């Protein structure tokens, strides 16, 4: 079970909620905040958020399961998301994904046993001019090739 949200987070949640005509509208920003603090959104957090925003826990679950950016289980310290949409695939994203699978020894959707890396493929990241590209957590990396990927990953603590 994860511990309670910090008071600071709770205060921030109140501030965000005041922007909207209904408290429920703060749900997405609040879930971002919680995920930022906890790494993922467990059933426990769903309940806490529901309580804070005065909505039913099922409403929170509906939203968490709809939006792909909300993690329902723990992800690695570095969440690698490689774009597999058209512009990136034209420029070779497929072979980069294979390279990452080999290098990390995991399949798409899996996390390395040391919990350092999670590998995912995603749809267009809105950075097609830098194809092929990926995100690691919230940082963008573009114009990738195998060497560049090795360099980036080897420099991560």
């Amino acid at each position, binding site marked *: 079970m994860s511990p309670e949200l910090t008071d600071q987070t709770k205060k921030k949640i109140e501030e965000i909620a005041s922007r909207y*005509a209904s408290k429920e*509208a703060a749900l997405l920003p609040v879930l971002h905040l919680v995920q930022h603090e906890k790494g993922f959104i467990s059933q426990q957090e769903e309940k806490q958020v529901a309580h804070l925003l005065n909505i039913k826990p099922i409403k929170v679950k509906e939203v968490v399961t709809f939006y792909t950016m909300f993690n329902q289980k723990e992800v690695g310290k570095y969440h690698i998301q490689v774009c597999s949409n*058209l512009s990136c695939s034209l*420029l070779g994203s497929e072979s980069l994904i294979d390279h990452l699978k080999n290098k990390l020894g995991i399949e798409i959707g899996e996390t390395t046993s040391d919990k350092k890396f999670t590998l995912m493929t995603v749809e*267009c*990241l809105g950075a097609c*001019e830098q194809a092929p590209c990926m995100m690691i957590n919230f940082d963008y990396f573009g114009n990738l090739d195998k060497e560049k990927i090795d360099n980036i990953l080897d420099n991560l603590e």
Partner: protein
Amino acid sequence: MTDKILTQHFGLENLFKIDVYLENKGYEAAKKALTDMKADEILEEVKAANLRGRGGAGFPAGVKWGFVPKDIEKPKYLCVNADEGEPGTFKDRYIMTHNPHLLIEGIIITSFCVGIHTAFIYIRGEYEAVALRLEQAISEAYDKDFLGESILGTGFKLDVYVHRGAGAYICGEETALLESLEGKRGNPRLKPPFPASVGLFGCPTVINNVETVSNIPSIILNGAAWFCQVGLPKDGGTRIFGVSGMVKKPGIYELPVGTNLKEIIIKHAGGMMEGKKLKAVIPGGMSAPILTAEEIDISMDFDSLVEAKSMLGSAAIIVIDEETSMLDVLRRVTKFYSHESCGQCTPCRIGNSWINKIVKRMADGNGKREDLDKIIQLANNMMGKTLCPLGDAAAMPVLSIIQKFRKELESYIPLGN
């Protein structure tokens, strides 16, 4: 005068800071609008400019604003669509990163014109750094009295908030965006009622794309006649064309509406990569029907592309080379839509996933002769039969790829199957 409206000052260092923006005529249009103009005059100017929506559908912004009821007790809202999810599209990111105050200035004028006191910028969740940049710019604008209780002492009040999405393409559709902003799943709403009368929290709401709103300051400052003269009379101004794929210089190019597609690819984007030959172009984001290499001598404006049975959409140009298999293109396209369907209507939910399964099987080398006709049938069953335009957006590219590249696609079906 230069033909660039949105990216004119992109070369300046720190343009995203309010001081640099102010040194370059920044917020002059907002001052003019709020102190010298009446709301009606602004609306007439925007209508006369024929500013067509840059988010995809090309609906005239002034006409849309005019639909908002004037004398109503309820609050009104502006939602700026910064979801930028259409594959191939990345232009709004450039505006928000390099010139966030231009967008804020557009928001101020739009809100003043329509009588709005709260605006939300709904930005895709992945653009975290861009959202931070916007928030900094907004806070600078508050400090300098361009936002807040009484903007420039005029008594006009406006608050602007950034609201982050969380990875769902469908939330770019305007009514799904409203649902998402209200803290729900992004399920599009049935229209009518249209958002202009019943939108966010049940109140009248204007929804416009980032690029659309960012064009407003120049129209106020230079006038509608000037704006039309930059582009076409019925489709004024510029477009930020985002070119990606197999070209030498992928990137954004702001050019007058009506610039020739061939010229954009060859002259501006540097032509094809070394040793590559052009095969096809998607001219307006993934939903736009594909054009063959022979069809790219075309004016990039809404009407010309409709005439060519495609669409200008978000003006995202994806360039495909000879070596690329159209079956692979079809696979990427159908995977995307089957992943992004919200699932509310059966033709879209089942149709897209079924089409994607057939295409995947074909790509695995197990295609059957009847497959292509089956896909056409499924796609036709989505066209015009769904709650939101995603059904059409998914069917159109699929149908066009099969129609124009049928021979090649058939060649991947094993003999005897």
